[in-house]
């Protein structure tokens, strides 16, 4: 089992969710986050007072998937979240040691 974490542009969330549904991903967790990367921040000006906004709003998606599905998931997210412009985000993949469904107690890939 793998945990696929993707940081994407907020307005791409719907496209990514749809793409993941299409390839059979059964659930994702979404968090609104802030951060900086190569895109850096921007400046805002209020009556002459200039503020540098360092952290930009992004959306973090977490999808726990079967190891066999991971390449498909990466491809789906990459395609759906791509605008070709700086700041499209990143995908991280990590190993999951165990998964348990709380209601039934099922464990392992069956619980995904």
């Amino acid at each position, binding site marked *: 089992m793998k945990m696929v974490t993707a940081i994407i542009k907020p307005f791409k969330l719907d496209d990514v969710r749809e793409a993941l549904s299409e390839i059979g991903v059964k659930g994702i967790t979404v968090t609104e986050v802030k951060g900086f990367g190569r895109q850096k921040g921007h400046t*805002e*000006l209020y*009556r*002459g*007072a200039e*503020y*540098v*906004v360092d952290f930009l709003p992004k959306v973090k998606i977490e999808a726990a998937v079967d190891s066999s599905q991971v390449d498909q998931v990466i491809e789906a997210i990459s395609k759906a979240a791509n605008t070709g412009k700086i700041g499209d985000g990143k995908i991280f993949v990590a190993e999951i040691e165990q998964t348990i469904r709380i209601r039934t107690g099922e464990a392992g890939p069956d619980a995904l």
Partner: protein
Amino acid sequence: MKFMKSLLGLFSTAMLMPALAFADDAPTLSSGDTAWMLVATVLVLFMTIPGLSMFYGGMVRSKNALSTFVQLFAITSLMTILWVVIGYSIAFGGEGAYWGGLDKMFLKGVTVDSLSGTIPETVFMVFQMTFAIITPALIVGAFAERMKFSAMLIFMSLWLIIVYAPITHWVWGDGGWLGGKGILDFAGGTVVHINAGIAGLVAAIVLGKRKGYGKTAMPPHNLTYTIIGASMLWVGWFGFNAGSELAADNVAGMAMAVTQIATAAAALTWMFAEWIFHGKPSGLGIASGAVAGLVAITPASGAVGPMGAIAIGAASGFLCYLSATKLKQMLGYDDSLDAFGVHGIGGIVGALLTGVFASTSLGGAGFGDGIESIAGQVSVQALGVGATLIYTGVVTFILLMILKLTIGLRVSEDVEVEGLDTGEHDERAYILN
């Protein structure tokens, strides 16, 4: 009162002026005038609550949003009572060069039948009350996000009685010395805006900067509030300016026209100035420009024509833009929401240019009584500006220093960091979870 008298002695030349005689040719009630003034009064109240509350409330950080609304609401209530108790009497209670006396304390003699011109005196008293509400309320912008609520209430109370009411009498009261000199202040450029602006500047300096000013970001938390507030001010200002004619007549009509024109000119000027110097036009900019125009046309609204209005609006839009964006940073004071930058500067620009564009040769309605040239009118206007700057500046400073040394002016550092909403009122503007 002694220091007040000696200070006033500075302007003793005025004492030699004969009291201005007001024509009392229409002692009967006009239902048309009364109907308009009832509406105008409500419009001016609407400028403070909710107009100015939203304009200011949107510009502060979210942790202080509610406290700004509370401050303006409390000022509205407190000034109402003080106006009834003593303010109205000092301003309009009788003849005198410097104050109207105490004869109308507790509205003595203001009955259901008493008239002021062609309208009931009750309507005149409440109309003037709404001015006595918005003027202190404007000062809030200068010390936003850091003044103790209790100190604010005491300061505003003293300020209304010692500063606002007497200056109102100087300009508009029977026998007032500035009015007697022929000053043109139709709706309160000097009485309201320069007065509040300079008091704000002094307050910003005496209270000191907000913690972290210039180092941490303090962007407005909701500019849509601010633009809605500016829009309400714009609408309400027709009561302020056209209402100051105290009649539903031709002058009120022209006051309405020039108010709209000057405001639009100033909004566009600030917007384009920002566009040129910064590269983008901003919402806060165009809204601020509109207020700068409203302020500047206030003294001029009964005296100038439409072309004068464009010139006054454009001048105020540009100069207020410079003062709020450049002058403040150059001098380093924290006039948080630009009470001085917009109302002080815009008021001065308006007061002086009223002297120019009142000229019939420039489409105006003519100079004040006994004045024959632009130079003569501008010098009287400048005298009014100077007297207000000095009197208000000095008295405001003394009032604030007394409070600073006794009960203290600022909230504790903890409260300032935490925000005035929870720190001073135990509640929050936004509960989003």
